[in-house]
């Protein structure tokens, strides 16, 4: 317990300061609760949502559906993106074929092509997951490509003079040095996918945390909006920590090699 506290006290301190400031600002009516609902109101809203749900679905159902979409989009997008990125980093030809599309897709606002997705893929889960897939894919691809490209040339040369085959070079030189960036890319991708959740759930809403936030925001129900924001933030944080733990296990050589 003491060691846990020893490691986490700075975070707890900051958390305490933020929570304290929030309470003080709202408690003394420095801002209207329309603008910033206090912890009490947000707590009440959370309880209300837990007990009664939001618009004919429980809060857990909304959160679960969102999580499914996020996972669906992230896993497929990160996997395909990483493979594509490895290929693009390894071969100029592969890069030439895919990079125009990747580079075009990457900064493209998801909101702007929603309707096209609906035209092609309808209003079901496919469109929503596809949107998240298209968001994760370029992020992972660029990270993997950059990872491969940052491999030290000398090391590749050394490996080659030692008689390593292409596959061995890839497996034992390129991949290990690219993995840290691939993991960074994956963590970025999950962040971006989460950040796109609302855009995805706009497609044909009535389910999901993103849609709940959007719908509540329409009538300035800041208390529900805050509950949604906090839940999404915490879920994102948890997923990020999970990835970080995985990264530490897999890429134990980062910063040491």
């Amino acid at each position: 317990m003491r060691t846990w506290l020893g490691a986490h006290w700075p975070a707890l301190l900051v958390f305490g300061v933020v929570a304290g400031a929030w309470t003080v600002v709202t408690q003394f009516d420095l801002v209207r609760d329309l603008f910033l609902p206090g912890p009490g109101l947000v707590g009440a809203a959370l309880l209300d949502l837990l007990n009664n749900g939001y618009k004919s679905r429980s809060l857990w159902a909304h959160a679960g559906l969102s999580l499914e979409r996020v996972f669906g989009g992230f896993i497929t997008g990160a996997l395909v993106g990483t493979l594509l990125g490895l290929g693009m980093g390894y071969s100029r030809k592969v890069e030439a074929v895919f990079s125009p599309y990747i580079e075009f897709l990457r900064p493209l606002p998801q909101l702007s092509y929603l309707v096209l997705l609906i035209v092609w893929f309808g209003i079901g889960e496919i469109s929503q997951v596809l949107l998240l897939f298209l968001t994760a894919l370029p992020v992972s691809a660029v990270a993997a490509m950059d990872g491969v490209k940052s491999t030290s040339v000398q090391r590749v040369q050394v490996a080659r003079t030692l008689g390593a085959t292409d596959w061995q070079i890839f497996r034992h030189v390129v991949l290990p040095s690219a993995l840290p960036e691939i993991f960074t890319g994956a963590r970025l991708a999950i962040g971006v996918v989460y950040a796109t959740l609302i855009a995805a759930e706009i497609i044909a809403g009535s389910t999901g945390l993103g849609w709940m936030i959007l719908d509540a925001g329409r009538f300035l129900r800041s208390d529900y909006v805050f509950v949604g924001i906090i839940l999404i933030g915490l879920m994102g944080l948890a997923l990020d920590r999970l990835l970080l733990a995985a990264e530490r296990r897999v890429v134990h050589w980062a910063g040491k090699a």
Partner: protein
Amino acid sequence: MRISITETTAGRIAGGRFAVRVAPEQWLSLVVVAAGFAGWELITLLRLVPPDLLPGPGAVAATFFDILRNGYRETTLSQDIFATLYRCGAGFLLACVTGVPLGLLMGYRAKIGSALDPIVQFMRPLPPLSYLVLLILWLGTGNASKIALLFLSAFPIIVSSAMAGVRSVRIQKLQVARSLGANEWQVFRFVILPSALPMIFTGARIALAVAFSTVVAAELMAATDGLGWMVFSASHFLRNDIIIMAVLLLGLLGMLLNSLVLVIDKGVIHWRGVE
């Protein structure tokens, strides 16, 4: 990494003088892009999708020239492009100016890092649309709320990448530098910063892309110009030709911005993949 080696050799032989020559890879890219347009044209020619849902390249080009000449709802196209670029640029630069130092500090000082990291990681997955309403309530409908939104979407990414960059510095290098008598500033300047910069630039490119992809969300509410505004304004009248034109422009502008960062990246980090 055979390819990289041939590339550098070729670069050396060309000596920069023949750099304008179009490489076979670039031809390949051109072919692929042309194929994309041909596919699009084919889809509309075969009427796989009704033209008002997916107008063909010709219709979109006509719309482009029309808007280029006559503007869109009392704004000129260049005004819209500039408004969007300005918001995106301001938000992104603000995020760089504040995020890079903070991220470096968080990577360098473990206590500060562990104190602030949860907040940064909490912010990262938040959908910008979720707090757009709050930002408008706080900052009004003008550019301030829009720039703030883009800033907030880019900031956590830049902070994270700067922090990760510092943390990826090889411990031996630090030890060597210290044992050679480097002071803290020198260690930071000559060991940590050069090692962290590649990651910072990668992060900056991703952050720029994220900020740019958020620009439409920023212009979703109460905007009077910008390409994102154009998308929404056109969607009220089901003008998909205008929407697609704006999407293409957004994509191209995004690519342009990205290559700008890449050029800076290449100019600054000549050591990427060499050390």
